[in-house]
């Protein structure tokens, strides 16, 4: 299957947006402008973007705590994401959720979850709705390697399989759950083998290769609509600490550097230049645009008002 230059450039743009978005967010932290924590996906952008960009607007995603790329991939507005990060009223969650709960139902994002594995069962339900209403749409559930050791992983994949629901279970395996290496958390090396417990198709991909991820997701969409769920494992690496307060004693600088050499953005850039012969100017233009988009998002967020205490009580229950 051929992927057009246009699509590749969009993948590139979204990955760059994600990277700039997070670098900006990290900077805000260092300035003390944000309380709370954040989990960055720098180095892993291919996974959220490659998958999300292959989806339709009416498809659903459920993101993880490390979900900025997943949200941008699905087309979420960075202004409202940044405003949420700063806890503003204009944020996609009105400042109630913060960056661990980024959600925008209008683009099919059913929200990021602070509970490791928390989105898995919700995804089953969302796909049940799609199947029940006869929609031609799918649900993508993102989760990490660590989440695959949660009981809810097992229950969710099993039920989705029994009911043949259109879910793509996407495991972003970045080798660690916080400080815990996968080898200390499970006795297997290829997480995709876990699909067999549900008689489900399971594939493992290079999680830094956004083109492959994009193509495989397009195919997975068709597959799950016809045959029911599948598991897609994207093997990648997070460059930064788990969250802002991580001393990273559990891994070596060499390991991190090795993975930095496999930067998914640089890889795509290389393909664009060398295989697609896109002029470097065009690419630099996108770099700049992405940067400007993030700057505008930040300006929007900073100018936005704080949410008000007196209105939140009314927001706990729906009418």
């Amino acid at each position, binding site marked *: 299957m051929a992927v057009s230059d246009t699509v590749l450039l969009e993948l590139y743009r979204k990955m760059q947006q994600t990277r700039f978005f997070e670098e900006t967010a990290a900077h805000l932290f260092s300035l003390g402008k944000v309380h709370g924590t954040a989990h960055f996906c720098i180095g892993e952008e291919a996974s959220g973007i490659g998958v999300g960009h292959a989806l339709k607007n009416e498809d659903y995603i459920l993101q993880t705590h490390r979900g900025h790329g997943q949200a941008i991939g699905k087309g979420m507005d960075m202004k409202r994401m940044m405003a949420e990060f700063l806890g503003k009223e204009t944020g996609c969650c009105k400042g109630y959720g913060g960056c661990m709960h980024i959600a925008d139902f209008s683009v099919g994002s*059913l929200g990021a979850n602070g509970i490791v594995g928390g989105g898995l069962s919700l995804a*089953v339900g969302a796909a049940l709705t799609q199947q029940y209403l006869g929609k031609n749409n799918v649900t993508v559930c993102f989760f990490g390697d660590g989440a695959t050791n949660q009981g809810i992983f097992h229950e969710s994949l099993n039920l989705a399989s029994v009911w043949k629901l259109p879910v793509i279970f996407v495991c972003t395996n970045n080798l660690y759950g916080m400080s815990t290496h996968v080898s200390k958390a499970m006795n297997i090396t290829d997480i995709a083998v876990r699909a067999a417990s549900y008689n489900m198709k399971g594939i493992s991909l290079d999680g830094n290769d956004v083109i492959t991820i994009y193509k495989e997701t397009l195919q997975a969409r068709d597959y799950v609509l016809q045959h029911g769920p599948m598991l897609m494992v994207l093997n990648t690496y997070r460059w930064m600490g788990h969250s802002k307060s991580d001393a990273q004693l559990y891994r070596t600088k060499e390991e991190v550097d090795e993975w930095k050499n496999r930067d998914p953005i640089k890889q795509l850039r290389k393909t664009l230049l060398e295989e697609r012969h896109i002029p470097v100017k065009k690419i630099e233009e996108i770099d700049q645009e992405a940067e400007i988009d993030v700057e505008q998002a930040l300006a929007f967020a900073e100018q936005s008002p704080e949410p008000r205490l007196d209105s939140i009580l009314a927001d706990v*229950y729906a009418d």
Partner: protein
Amino acid sequence: MREITYADAIREAMSEEMRRDSRVIFIGEDIGVYGGAFGVSRGMLEEFGETRVRDTPISEAVIVGAAAGAAMTGLRPIAELMFSDFITLAMDQLVNQAAKNRFQFGSQGAIPLVIRTPAGSGTGAAAQHSQSLEAWVCHVPGLKVVIPSTPYDAKGLLKAAVRDNNPVLFFEQKLLYRTKGEVPEPELSEDHIIPLGKADIKRSGHDLTIISYGRMVQESLKAAEKLAGIGIDTEVLDIRTLVPMDRQAVIASAKKTGRVLIVHEAVKTGGFGGEIVSTIADSEAFFYLDAPIKRLCGLDVPIPYNPGLEAGVVPSSAAIYTSALELMEQRQLMQGAT
């Protein structure tokens, strides 16, 4: 009005709502051919088919989580947990997901979800199948909590719960399933909706208020009958909906009688009785109290298997009667003290 059982009332409520609204689906363990562990859903599979009455694997967490996900995306699921003790297995889905997702996403969408589940002791099923755990979910903003005491209420409240746009925990009382009571004819059912958040005076009286819910309302009514025999005029207030609670009704009744006994089957420590006591103790009713506010609740023990012990650890009409008498005496003590 015709008389039907509490279980039938629940089945009717579900079936009517499913006929009315195709978005209402029903999921749970052994609810189809088996008709549910207590036979509540017998016949529903035949009427609604397997796409709407969905048996699941034994996986309580995903039952609740998937129901929540379906509710977030346009369906209106009813999920059954076979015993309310099993909400322990789905607490994350209930508390961190269903209760919070609307709020934490900035009040996007709604989560119209009913979790029906049988509660209480008395069936010889011992410690893991007999609990009354309603207090937990009352402590979770975002959830509503209902416990009906009669077939009439069960039907009207369940229909209201299904139409509510929030997650509602609907605790059914195992020992009431086979009890009968008046319920409007099916033709009049469309109007038989009891709004959540309204208490009901099941018996009006002037000397003493018993506040209760669920099966204990029936025990309280028996005790009130006996108390009437010795000239004590007891009001029995069934709060029906624990969240939102009808504070006005609680306060009004406490003001009216000046003496309050709270009765529930759940163990005393940390039980919902504390919320009712506190509502009174921090209201204008406080100034009208003639006696301490008493709670009669389950003993602080897991429910034992032996039938004598099992009956002995939860309130009975006899124990309620005795506590009510004590409360009346305490009044006299106090008057003596003044």
